[in-house]
């Protein structure tokens, strides 16, 4: 696609705009953004509504055209409510304008001075002993305010603090000073973010400093509008602010991305390995090879965010592996990829088989390829895959995924950072299974040879974030698909009526991390309802679900609970578990999808236990 801005304005579809590999929108003028908003609204009306509420102590209304513009590009019909100017606590009450708007997200646009008057006295910020008290007080105030709002809404709460309009008090000496302003601002910001994560459910600190660093102070603030209308931003900054905010909305409402499926030639390196050979491709310290090295490094950053990398290349496999294993400047060695398809099959077939191998839906795939042709095929054959065409100019390659909304994250767990490693273990396991089953044809002996150990934790407070994440992200092996927040999971853990049980699975290839969760709700002294039972698709096929269910049933039986009810709620994605209860000794109950089991007449048969050693750690309430 030619980068003539008029093309974008006049002809591009929403999808083409959304999947651009560079920041095409940053230099749009306000009239251009408005015209494009109007055209997209007419040609491709948005399907999803998102309701935003803004509480602000500086002008926020002027952001509207930019917010509407970025929302429409993402297919969002944005409805924004601006609270009356000021940090008005009345807005937190039922009956306020904000409450009536029923927002999905509340954005707090504040300055430090609004949070605590101490910040407007320059002296107090320059003495370390006074800083400590001031910061503690400021964090308390922020938490107090946000908690008030949290009481009456389940909207995501987002806090952002306007960066200082002036350079540090001590100017260029700041970094030498014992109470460097830049340093304490950063530390305070970190304290706000930590307090939000720990104390305010479903909240996020939106760091405007990152955006300021990208744009630069000269281009960020417009003093004319600041001093006349208390609006701090240049059009460039307002545009970028809106883009990032809409990004947060997209993450909340779009299917989660999980896999980056990468082409190799002219994507991971310059040139074509099959023609140019290992010494001929561009990859190394000189231009253009250094751009590909940087891109590979950036891909590793995405892996650290929890996205898994897969390779999808039309090549002879041995040529590509030679680069992965032996090229001195290759960063993404073989073990960084969770799966590979290096062959001459059409790429849409390869993506389908990758999706099967990884047990991840195609709507969680982002496909990256330099070829027009390949990109078009995927767009037409697999419309649910997001397709990013790498730029033809090497200097634009390292940053080509920075605009992709779904590659940002707003939470990170230990499992996320280990994900590729976990998938790599699964790949070994599959190979081992093929080998073993081929050897003596018995699945059970394969399972036994894995030497599995399951560790079950009951009502543990240790991994609340991961447990909430499992309810949020698991689609296939999920009997009721009831989604819960961290706060809700914590409430269940602390409640006497609920039992929260999760497990990790260990075998000869490694540890899975927490991959299964079951929620039980006590009906009376003898009866329990299974509120949800779910498992990560990563470990399907190892009978862990049976071991987990039987272990929990036995656990309850020992404390006199014998009556169980359960429900299967069908969704588009969970047909995998349609027979889960009926194949595990439950009989039909009252109503569609309802099951029950009476352990006093049908106890769990020990012979049905799969070959998994089980250990239960029960936290007493």
């Amino acid at each position, binding site marked *: 696609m030619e980068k003539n801005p008029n093309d974008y304005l006049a002809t591009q579809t929403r999808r083409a705009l959304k999947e651009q590999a560079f920041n095409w929108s940053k230099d749009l*003028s*306000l*009239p*251009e953004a*408005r*015209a494009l908003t109007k055209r997209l609204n007419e040609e491709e009306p948005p399907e999803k509504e998102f309701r935003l509420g803004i509480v602000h102590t500086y*002008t926020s*209304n*002027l952001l509207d*055209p930019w917010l509407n513009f970025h929302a429409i590009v993402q297919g969002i019909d944005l409805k924004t409510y601006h609270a009356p100017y000021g940090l008005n606590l009345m807005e937190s009450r039922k009956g306020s304008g904000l409450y009536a708007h029923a927002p999905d997200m509340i954005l707090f646009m504040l300055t430090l001075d609004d949070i605590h008057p101490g910040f407007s006295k320059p002296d107090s910020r320059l003495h370390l002993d006074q800083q400590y008290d001031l910061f503690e007080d400021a964090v308390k105030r922020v938490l107090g305010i946000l908690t008030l709002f949290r009481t009456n809404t389940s909207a995501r709460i987002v806090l952002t603090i306007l960066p200082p309009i002036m350079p540090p008090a001590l100017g260029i000496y700041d970094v030498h000073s014992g109470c460097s302003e830049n340093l304490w601002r950063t530390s305070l910001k970190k304290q706000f973010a930590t307090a939000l994560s720990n104390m305010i459910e479903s909240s996020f600190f939106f760091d405007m400093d990152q955006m300021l660093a990208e744009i630069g102070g000269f281009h960020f603030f417009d003093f*004319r*509008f600041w*001093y*006349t*209308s208390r*609006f701090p931003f240049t*059009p460039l900054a307002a545009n970028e602010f809106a883009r990032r905010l809409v990004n947060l909305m997209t993450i909340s409402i779009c299917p989660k991305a999980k896999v980056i499926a990468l082409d190799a030639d002219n994507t991971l390196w310059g040139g074509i390995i099959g023609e140019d050979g290992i010494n001929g491709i561009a990859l190394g310290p000189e231009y253009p090879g250094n751009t590909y090295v940087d891109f590979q490094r950036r891909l590793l950053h995405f892996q650290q965010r929890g996205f898994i990398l897969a390779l999808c290349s039309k090549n002879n496999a041995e040529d590509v592996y030679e680069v992965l294993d032996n090229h001195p400047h290759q960063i993404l060695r073989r073990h960084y990829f969770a799966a590979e398809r290096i062959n001459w099959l059409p790429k849409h077939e390869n993506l389908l088989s990758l999706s099967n191998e990884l047990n991840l839906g195609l709507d969680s795939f982002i496909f990256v390829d330099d070829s027009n042709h390949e990109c078009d095929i995927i767009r037409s054959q697999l419309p649910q895959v997001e397709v990013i065409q790498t730029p033809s100019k090497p200097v634009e390659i390292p940053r080509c995924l920075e605009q992709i909304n779904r590659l940002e994250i707003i939470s990170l767990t230990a499992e996320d950072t280990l994900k590729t490693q976990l998938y790599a273990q699964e790949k070994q396991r599959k190979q081992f299974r093929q080998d073993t089953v081929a050897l003596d044809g018995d699945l059970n002996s394969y399972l036994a040879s894995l030497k599995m150990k399951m560790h079950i934790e009951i009502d543990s407070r240790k991994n609340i974030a991961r447990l909430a994440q499992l309810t949020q992200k698991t689609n296939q092996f999920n009997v009721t698909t009831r989604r819960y927040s961290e706060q809700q999971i914590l409430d269940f853990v602390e409640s006497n009526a609920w039992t929260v049980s999760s497990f990790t699975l260990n075998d000869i290839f490694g540890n899975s991390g927490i991959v299964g969760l079951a929620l039980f709700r006590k009906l009376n002294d003898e009866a329990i309802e299974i509120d949800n039972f779910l498992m990560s698709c990563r470990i399907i096929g190892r009978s862990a679900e049976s071991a987990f269910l039987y272990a929990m049933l036995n656990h309850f039986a020992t404390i006199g609970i014998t009556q169980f009810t359960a429900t299967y709620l069908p969704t588009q994605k969970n047909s995998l578990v349609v027979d889960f209860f009926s194949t595990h000794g439950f009989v039909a109950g009252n109503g569609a999808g309802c099951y029950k089991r009476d352990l006093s007449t049908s106890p769990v048969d020990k012979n049905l236990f799969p070959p998994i050693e089980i250990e239960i750690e029960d936290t007493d309430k």
Partner: protein
Amino acid sequence: MSVSEQVIHVVAETLNVSSSTITKESTAENTNGWDSLAHVNLMIALEQTFDITLDVEDFAKLNSIQAITEFIEKMKN
């Protein structure tokens, strides 16, 4: 398009109304929606459309189609 037609177009777009509702006689005072906030976005839109830089002191004066048109014609000459 003449300067005054362009100005009418920019004002209408900024206020999110049809061009036909804005005339050469329109002013901030007699036009619905042309309030102080819309005025800021109008200043930005004028700068970007006509590739000019406005002074804070000019903001308040540019409060009618006629004033804006004359101002821009003067700057462009």
